[in-house]
C-alpha cells in the first residue's frame, strides 16, 4: 500500500543539498489597469486604491521571510495605470529590467502586454481576467493564469447545482460583451454536466438610476415582471460580468428560486470570510498589514508572487523561463489555503485550484464537488481539460 518513492527521494535529496543556496535578488512588478467603470451595486465592492497591490505587499513579506534563510530578497514594484497608458507603463517596467510581471487587466490588453513581454523574455501572470480564449487558442507560452477562467467558475457553479439536483436552469444574462461571454461559459457548463437551460433571457443594460434613493422601488417592480412566465426551473443562473443587475435578482424573482453565478451564490477564488484550511492566518496577516479585508485580486496577486517565491526557493532561479518551467513541472506544488495543493496545467498555463462558492458572508461550498471524478486530478473537472484546450504554446 504505502511506499517510499525512490524518485521522490532523489528529488528531495537534491533540494536538501541545495541549501544554502546562492543569493538571488528577485525583482517583480504588479501592473494594474484601471478602467473607467460605474460604481458597483454594493458598496462592499468598491475598489480600494491598493487593490491587488496589498497582496503584493504581503507576498513580499512572506517570500522575504523565507528568503532570509536562503539569501534571497524580494522587491515588487506596483503601478496603476489608465488603459491608454498601460503600454508605456509596461515598457517602463521592462526598461527597469523587471522580467516577472503580474498584470490585472482585461483580456485584450493583457494579451498585447504579454506579447510585448515575450519580446523581452519576460513572464506574465494573469491575476484578473477569466477570458476563456486566453486558456484556449489565444494562450501564450509566457503567460501563467492565476485567476480562474470563466469556464472554471461556471463549472464550479454547475457542479454544485448538479450535486443539489438543480438540473433545470433559468439563465439570465446581461447585454454587454463580458456578460455575453460569461453566459456562453454557463451554457457550455450546462452541456458539460447535463443540465437543461429551460429558459434563457437577456436583461438588457439600459442604464438607470439604480443607486438613487428610490432605485429599489423600480427594481422591485421591474424584475418580477421580467422573470414572469419562465419555464419550470430549479435555480436562476445570472451571467452579469459588468455588475448591473445580478445582485438584485434574489428576492425579486417572479418564481422564488435560489440565484447563483454573478449574484446569490458566487464562485470566487477567495473572500475575506474564508477561514477553512488555515486561511484565517492569511486573513489576519493581510488585515494587520493593510488595514482592510482581502479581495480576490489581492489573493491572486499574492498567489502569483508566491509561485515566483516557490520557484526561487526550490529551483534556485528567478529567470523568467526558469520560473515558468518549474511552475508547470511535476515538481511544483503550492499550499494556497484551499485544502489541497495548487499546480499548473502544463497544456495552457492555468493554475488548478478549488473554487469557493460564496454567498456574501460565508463559504457555502467548495468545488469540485464530491463525485466528480477525473483521471488526473478532480480539479481538472473544472475549466478546459487537456483535450478541450487548443493551446499549443506549452508543447
Amino acid at each position, binding site marked *: 500500500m*504505502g511506499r*517510499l518513492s525512490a524518485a521522490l527521494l532523489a528529488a528531495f535529496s537534491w533540494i*536538501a543539498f541545495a541549501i544554502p543556496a546562492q543569493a538571488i535578488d528577485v525583482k517583480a512588478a504588479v501592473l494594474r489597469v484601471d478602467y473607467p467603470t460605474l460604481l458597483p451595486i454594493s458598496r462592499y465592492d468598491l475598489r480600494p486604491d491598493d487593490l491587488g497591490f496589498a497582496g503584493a505587499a504581503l507576498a513580499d513579506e*512572506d517570500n522575504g521571510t523565507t528568503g532570509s534563510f536562503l539569501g534571497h530578497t524580494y522587491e515588487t514594484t506596483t503601478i496603476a495605470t489608465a488603459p491608454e497608458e498601460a503600454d508605456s507603463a509596461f515598457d517602463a517596467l521592462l526598461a527597469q529590467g523587471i522580467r516577472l510581471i503580474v498584470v490585472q487587466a482585461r483580456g485584450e490588453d493583457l494579451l498585447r502586454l504579454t506579447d510585448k513581454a515575450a519580446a523581452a523574455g519576460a513572464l506574465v501572470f494573469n491575476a484578473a481576467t477569466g477570458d476563456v480564449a486566453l486558456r484556449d487558442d489565444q494562450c501564450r507560452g509566457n503567460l501563467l493564469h492565476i485567476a480562474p477562467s470563466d469556464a472554471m467558475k461556471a463549472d464550479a457553479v454547475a457542479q454544485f447545482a448538479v450535486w443539489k439536483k438543480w438540473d433545470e436552469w433559468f439563465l439570465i444574462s446581461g447585454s454587454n460583451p463580458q456578460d455575453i461571454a460569461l453566459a456562453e461559459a454557463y451554457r457550455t457548463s450546462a452541456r458539460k454536466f447535463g443540465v437543461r437551460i429551460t429558459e434563457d433571457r437577456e436583461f438588457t443594460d439600459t442604464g438607470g438610476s439604480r443607486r438613487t434613493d428610490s432605485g429599489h422601488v423600480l427594481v422591485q417592480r421591474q424584475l418580477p415582471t421580467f422573470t414572469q412566465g419562465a419555464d419550470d426551473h430549479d435555480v436562476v443562473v445570472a451571467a452579469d460580468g459588468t455588475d448591473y443587475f445580478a445582485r438584485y435578482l434574489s428576492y425579486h424573482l417572479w418564481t422564488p428560486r435560489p440565484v447563483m453565478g454573478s449574484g446569490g451564490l458566487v464562485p470566487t477564488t477567495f473572500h475575506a470570510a474564508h477561514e477553512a484550511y488555515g486561511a484565517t492566518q492569511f486573513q*489576519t496577516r493581510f488585515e494587520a498589514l493593510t488595514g482592510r479585508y482581502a479581495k480576490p485580486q489581492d489573493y491572486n496577486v499574492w498567489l502569483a508572487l508566491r509561485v515566483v517565491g516557490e520557484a526561487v526557493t526550490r529551483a534556485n532561479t528567478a529567470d523568467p523561463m526558469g520560473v515558468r518551467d518549474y511552475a508547470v513541472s511535476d515538481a511544483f506544488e503550492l499550499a494556497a489555503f484551499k*485544502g489541497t495543493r495548487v499546480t499548473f496545467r502544463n497544456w495552457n498555463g492555468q493554475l488548478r485550484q478549488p473554487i469557493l462558492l460564496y454567498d456574501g458572508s460565508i463559504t457555502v461550498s467548495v468545488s469540485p464537488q464530491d463525485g466528480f471524478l477525473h483521471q488526473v486530478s*478532480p480539479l481538472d473537472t473544472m475549466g478546459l481539460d487537456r483535450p478541450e484546450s487548443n493551446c499549443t504554446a506549452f508543447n
Partner: protein
Amino acid sequence: MKSLVVTTAISLLLAAPALAGKAFVSNERGNTITVVNTDTWEVETEFFAGHRPRGITVSPDGSKIYVCASDDNLVRVFDSTTYEELPSLPSGPDPELFILEPSGKRLYIANEDDNLVTVTDTETRTVLAEVPVGVEPEGMGMSPDAKFVVNTSETTNMAHFISTEDYKIKHNILVDQRPRYAHYTADGKRLFVTSEIGGTVSVMDIAEDGTPTVIGKISFEVAGVQPEWLQPVGARVTQDGKRLFVALGPANRVAVVDAQSLEVLDYILVGQRVWQLDFTPDEKYLLTTNGNSNDITVIDVAREKAIRSVQVGQQPWGVVTID
C-alpha cells in the same frame, strides 16, 4: 468490547495503586477542555479553557495542564486535579503549538501570526527569548536531550532547528508544503516532519551533534480516497522507535508506519478530520482528536485497531494524557 473490559481489569490488578488516567482534549471552537477518564472512557467534565484553545501539554509531574489559548494571546494553565485556573504564561501573539522541555522549565511556543518562536520560563512566567522563524510557525518538536527545538513553518515550508543554548537557528531544511508537526524518536536519532498539503512525511536521521540529514519521504495511498485528502498532521512514535502513527486529516484515517523501514503497514479508520495524537502514558492506547465529528478515537496500540470513540467538545484539536 468484552476483551477490552478484561484487559482493563487485568491492568487495574497489575497496577494496583494507580488512579484513573485522564486525557485532556482542547476544543478549538468550544473554548473548553474535555477531561476523559482513560480507564472507563467516560467524560468526567468539561471546563472553560480560554479562547480558541489548541496546543495542549502537561508538566513533567503531571500536575499542570498548559494550553495555547490562541485568541487570548497567552498560555493558560490549569491544575490537572482540581481544574482550577493557575496564573497564565506570556506566549506572544496567537500561540498555536508548543513544546515543554523535559525539565518542565522552558516552554517553546509557535506564534502563528508573527513568525516567531517565543521561549517562556514557566517558573518566573517571563519571556526569555523570541526567535524569528519562517512564515506561519506551527509544529514544535524537541530532541530528547533537549538541545534542539524543531519548529516547522507552514508557508515557508521549512523545519528550523533552534539551539536551546543560544536560541539561534542552526539548520533549515526545506520540506513539502505546509509542514504541521515535528517529532523525534525517543533515542533522538530520527525525526519525522509531516507535510499536510504535500501529503508526505519527511524523515531525517539526526547525527550526534544534532545535524539532520534527509533520508527519505513517506507517502500514502488509500484505495477509494482522493490523494488530495491524505493530509498528514499529527504524529507519534512508540518508545521503542518501531511504529509511527500519522493522523491523515480529512482522510479520516491514522496511518501505521514501520518507523525503521518507513513502509506504511495499515490505515486505521477514525473520526472525521483527525488532527493530533497522544499515547496514554503506558502506551497502550493512542488517542486521536477528530475535529469534524467532535470526538476522540481510542486506538489499541498493540492490536493497531480503533476500539471506541468518545464524544468531546466542539472541534477537538489537541490531546494530552496523564497517569
